């Protein structure tokens, strides 16, 4: 991929990877990259969402030694962007969009689409929380009869990491 091309979707995936702790390939694998992007854009509008992505792009392009630190400093601690970033994190994990905090809405505007809800069935099913705990979303992904008897897929790898 060309590095000088501005691709807001890639910016979104890159920032999401830092916020969620999941790799970009993993995020693409959920099939939610485009729909989450669109959901957020619809709710927040170009001005706020664009500001978030631009800030992320600046962090990425500054080739800072510690991207996580910069994201904390310039995004999470920012009064406009911080609550947005936290909401995006929750969206990835649970498939829920939580209404922005009252204080934030008072200050930056209350959009009509900014309502607490599960944004889609797929967003729930592919929520990262299930991957994080090596479980299946109840009633949504079939694990098959008897699948509760063996340890979860990937559990042995976690054990390996702990041992190291």
């Amino acid at each position, binding site marked *: 991929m060309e590095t000088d091309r501005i691709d807001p979707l890639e910016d979104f995936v890159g920032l999401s990877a830092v916020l969620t702790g999941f790799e970009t390939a993993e995020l*693409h694998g959920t099939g939610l990259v485009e729909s989450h992007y669109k959901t957020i854009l619809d709710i927040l509008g170009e001005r706020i969402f664009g500001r978030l992505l631009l800030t992320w792009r600046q962090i990425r392009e500054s080739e800072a030694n510690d991207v996580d630190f910069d994201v904390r400093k310039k995004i999470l601690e920012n009064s406009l962007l911080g609550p947005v970033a936290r909401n995006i994190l929750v969206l990835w994990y649970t498939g829920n969009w939580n209404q922005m905090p009252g204080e934030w809405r008072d200050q930056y505007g209350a959009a009509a689409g900014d309502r607490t809800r599960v944004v889609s069935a797929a967003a729930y099913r592919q929520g990262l929380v299930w991957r994080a705990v090596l479980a299946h979303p109840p009633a949504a*992904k*079939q694990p*098959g*009869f008897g699948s509760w008897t*063996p340890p979860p897929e990937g559990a042995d790898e976690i054990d390996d990491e702990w041992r190291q």
Partner: protein
Amino acid sequence: MNIPTINTLDSLRRHVQYALAVEHFTVPPYLCALYSIPEDTNREATSVIQSVVMEEMLHMVLVANLLNAIGGKAKLNHPSFIPTYPNYLPHSARDFQVSLGKFSRSAIATFMRIERPEKTDAPPEGDYFHSIGQFYAAVRDGLKYLVDQEQKHGGERVFSGDSALQITREYYYGGAGVITVIKDLETAEHAIREIVDQGEGRPGEVFNDDNDKEVRGPGMRQPDQLEPTRQEPAGTHAGGYLEAQHHKNFSGEEEPAHYYRFQELFEERYYQAGDTPETGPRGPELPLLWDNVYNMRSNSKASDYAEGSQIRRKLDGFNHCYMRLLDGLQSAFCGKPAEIVRAVSLMYEVKERAVELMRIPSGDGDTTVGPSFEYVPPKRDPGGSQALS
């Protein structure tokens, strides 16, 4: 009785193992086409491919039962069993190659070649076969010959296998069709007939069954009902579901053999009552959205991606999962039939991982990665056959 090409018990066992390899060979290409179709689009194509692939899995179980019945031993979790794609059908006449790729008209054309019916006068072919029907005809002739030798000339006992190794219907839930426990020539022929009828159909016939031919059309097949656990609560196993006649699909509806079902997709038109192989399908239209698929790169390989890279790790993870599934089937076919239940849950896992790979960009700006279905050596268990226990 003429001496057929398969005329010793060793040769028969070897050829039945080939049959297992042939049945398995078709599964990854069919699954790639199936999983490349995003949810809720091309539902008709999804339902056709899914029903075919489930029957291929049934065929694997039937072949494993046959192999066990004649005292052979299945071997699945082995590099020689797992094909690299593109490739020819194992032990075939090598006249066309099969790739792992997305749902497309050319993929469906290849699937039709896999399932194509033999000509009515085609000779049985145990090696370098031209159609799967000819291959199974050779296996059947070999069986008959050896049973005849045993009965008339005191030849070696053919059905000497341990009956405890058979996969019976209580172990086989959520799949297509009926499991045949094989113990003699009659049950063996029944199983072979089921495999060939479902794949290529009977010569000159489109539909598998003679009764109640009806005009089929949109809405008559219900893709949702193909999802086994939705139709049948997990754990209740067989029930009425498996009682269904094998010529009918899960809704009890008439169903053409695989070849003709693929032809319906290819022509974007259903077969209807009165249609024959010569007329082709003349029923209602079956419009498909050929472009509405994940643009999976054909014949992905883990080695296309740098070791340690995100995509490589995803592909390795997929391949390990697939190997564990084959390990599970290996155990199930070699003395622990209950393992097949566990293998089914790995099939769901394989599906989830395959669909993920369908969505991950490959990095060329155009295609996605797609699953590669490659052999990988077992991670922890050098024996490779008890990863599930």
